[in-house]
């Protein structure tokens, strides 16, 4: 029991917010269950939904917890797998068997179906917490929903009355558990760490790996990483050749950029855009088939997607600090401010890259939704993405280092960009390109440039830091 207690404590230490949220939902479910039993049968679906959400959230946390615990060295702990199994058994008793007991006592209908769904929900949560790329397993459901909603409703209706449905759900649960647990229990050689500043665009939705946690990449992921590394090497070689031909400031800056941002070379950017475009097109065609989508929503979403790079910059810069001492010595600046300016200037390249990405995705979105006025979307995207990228870069250059601070900054940028894009789209639509665009550009770019110059000045005044980040 002591090991189960210790494993449980890890959950509290790693994901306290999810633990609190899960328990609040569970308490809410308990409260409504009591009301339901007191004669409010209409609260039954709400109770079930709340309990399902509680179980889902809790097990996302469990998956995340297991991800950070199941590293090769942990398998040297005696009976580690068996202890995990015991821990899992306790969890099943609390989240599956106990509610099932109530279902039996209360003689609820669809007992077998409920009995099969009760473990399915935690299995989903576990998969999403332990495997960041789990969304590919959830897509097929939405594909069916998107392409044939009537068929899906009929299928659900029939499934409710079929004796095979519980078995099918149990089989699905077993499959999900296998997908989530098997990679965690496998001992593999650790892949070489990638640059903390890099971002391939495919892993932005996933939580960062805990220190010591192996990168659990599939075959395709490994190949794509190798492809990115190949483009980085080519770009670095070109930059080196350019610098040896003409060792001027521009070529020196290019070298610094190739070092700091290895995956922001032309080939890698093109590759990233193509990959994301393929995924977005598939997602759109499969999930949102024949649905009408507001162009403003598409535009706001694409800009958000292009800005998702900047939070990584903040974390990466902190992780890179010990290695930056080497760069400092190599650059041998006259002053510390000169070094800081070199870094901030090098990172400025992310603004046009982010703009290019936003415009490409917006154009793609406009084509996919058959937008009535694609130039309108692109025009607003151009102005807003420039301003948003500059503001995001500024904020993350001097912004907070704590996890909470970063999260707040990200949320501010996210909602700010959405509001600005929607507002800008309306303004240009209402007052025309010249007046609306002019006002939008003056307001947003004026704000962004002011923030950028202030952030750059602040960054240059700061002493460079080379100490390793804590924890």
């Amino acid at each position, binding site marked *: 029991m*002591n*090991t189960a*207690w*210790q494993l449980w*404590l*890890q959950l509290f*230490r*790693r994901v306290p917010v999810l633990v609190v949220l899960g328990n609040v939902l569970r308490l809410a479910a308990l409260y409504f269950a009591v009301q339901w039993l007191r004669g409010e049968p209409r609260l039954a679906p709400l109770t079930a939904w709340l309990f399902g959400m509680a179980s889902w959230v809790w097990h996302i946390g469990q998956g995340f917890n297991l991800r*950070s615990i199941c*590293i*090769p*060295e942990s*398998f*040297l*702990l*005696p*009976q*580690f*797998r068996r*202890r995990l199994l015991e821990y899992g058994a306790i969890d099943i008793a609390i989240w599956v068997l106990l509610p099932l007991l109530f279902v039996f006592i209360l003689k609820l209908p669809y007992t077998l179906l409920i009995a099969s769904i009760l473990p399915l929900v935690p299995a989903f949560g576990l998969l999403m917490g332990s495997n960041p790329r789990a969304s590919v397993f959830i897509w097929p459901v939405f594909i069916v929903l998107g392409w044939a909603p009537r068929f899906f409703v009929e299928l659900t209706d029939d499934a409710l009355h079929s004796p095979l449905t519980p078995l099918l759900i149990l089989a699905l649960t077993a499959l999900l558990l296998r997908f989530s647990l098997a990679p965690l229990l496998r*001992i*593999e*050689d650790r892949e070489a760490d990638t640059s903390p500043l890099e971002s391939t665009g495919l892993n932005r939705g996933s939580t960062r790996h805990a*220190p*010591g946690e192996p990168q659990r990449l599939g075959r395709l992921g490994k190949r794509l990483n190798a492809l990115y590394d190949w483009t980085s090497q080519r770009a670095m070689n070109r930059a080196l050749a350019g610098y040896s031909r003409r060792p001027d400031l521009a070529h020196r800056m290019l070298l610094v950029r190739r070092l700091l941002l290895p995956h922001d070379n032309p080939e890698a950017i093109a590759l990233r855009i193509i990959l994301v475009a393929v995924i977005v097109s598939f997602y759109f065609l499969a999930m949102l088939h024949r649905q009408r989508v507001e162009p403003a929503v598409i535009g706001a979403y694409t800009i958000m997607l292009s800005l998702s790079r900047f939070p990584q910059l903040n974390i990466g810069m902190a992780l890179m600090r010990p290695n930056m001492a080497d760069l400092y010595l190599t650059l041998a600046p006259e002053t510390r401010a000169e070094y800081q300016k070199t870094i901030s200037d090098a990172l400025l390249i992310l603004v046009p890259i982010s703009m290019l990405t936003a415009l490409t995705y917006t154009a793609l979105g406009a084509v996919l939704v058959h937008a009535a006025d694609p130039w309108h979307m692109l025009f607003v995207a151009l102005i807003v993405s420039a301003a948003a990228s500059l503001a995001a870069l500024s904020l993350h250059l001097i912004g907070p280092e704590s996890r909470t601070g970063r999260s707040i900054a990200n949320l501010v940028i996210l909602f700010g960009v959405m509001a600005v894009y929607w507002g800008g789209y309306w303004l240009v639509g209402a007052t025309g390109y010249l007046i609306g665009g002019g006002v939008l550009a003056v307001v947003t770019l004026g704000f962004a440039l002011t923030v950028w110059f202030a952030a750059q000045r602040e960054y240059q005044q700061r002493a460079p830091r080379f100490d390793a980040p*804590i*924890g």
Partner: protein
Amino acid sequence: MTVIDPATTPPGTMPASESSARPVLQVRGLEKSFKQRQVLKALDWHVPTGRVVGLLGRNGAGKTTLLRCLLGLSPINGGSIELFGEPMIEPGGERMHRIGFVPQTFDLFPWMKVRAYLDFTAAFYTRWNQILVDRLLADWELDAKQKIGELSQGQRQKLAIVRAIAPDPDLLVLDEPVASLDPQARRAFMGELLTLMRAPGKTVIFSTHITADLERADADIALLRDGRIQFTRPLAELRERLKRVIFQRADGWSQPPAVAGVMKSHVQGDQAILLVEDPVIDSLHALAARENANLRIEVPTLEDLFVELA
């Protein structure tokens, strides 16, 4: 420079008197590759119970890989490993209670506090020497309330050592355990290690570049080179049997003279320096007289041996 492999003792084996003890570790034909690069090539090795074995090898020789393979922390491509008489296909079973491991770098669980990490680990073991843990935390000035992420590399190394020896393991595997330690901490660690080893049936395998520590522990020396264990021998025996033979003459040497039992030789200025196993002193004097050279025979330090052989 010429290199001749030692042929007198089969690679990876102890002398007959030692190898009769029941081995704690038995490796046969171990193969390990990373992508196209083969690191361990048909490696054979056995380690008897109750020995301190120092694993020596140059940077990149594969010491860390070998130690991780032994414990099942890195999948192998071929061969077999037996630990405590059972195949080590993956880490598991009761024997894990008997194994302690100190990794080369300890960068795990930075969000945990020292005490919480030790409590978490202790929960898994049937044997856990809490008195030893508390004493070492105090002696080595580790703050139990501090987060692991806030510890220096040396402090993390100390924590990893505390964690490894607290379950009183029968086999302790240490991957360059003293690399980040200051001299005081290194001495303290070696003191603890030697105390631990006084108990019967305890075995220690540790890789290190600090040969003085191996000399202090009077360890058996295992040399890893070219993906294989070239030999495993007690340090005293190495000292007794291997000699550094130096021929010196004013005319210099175009190549080192041929001597029976030579393991490695090179010319340096007016000296021909040879590492010779079981040298016959009379014939060396006769050779020196023939070549009109001065002869000097030295007992090599372990560092000399490492430089010559690794």
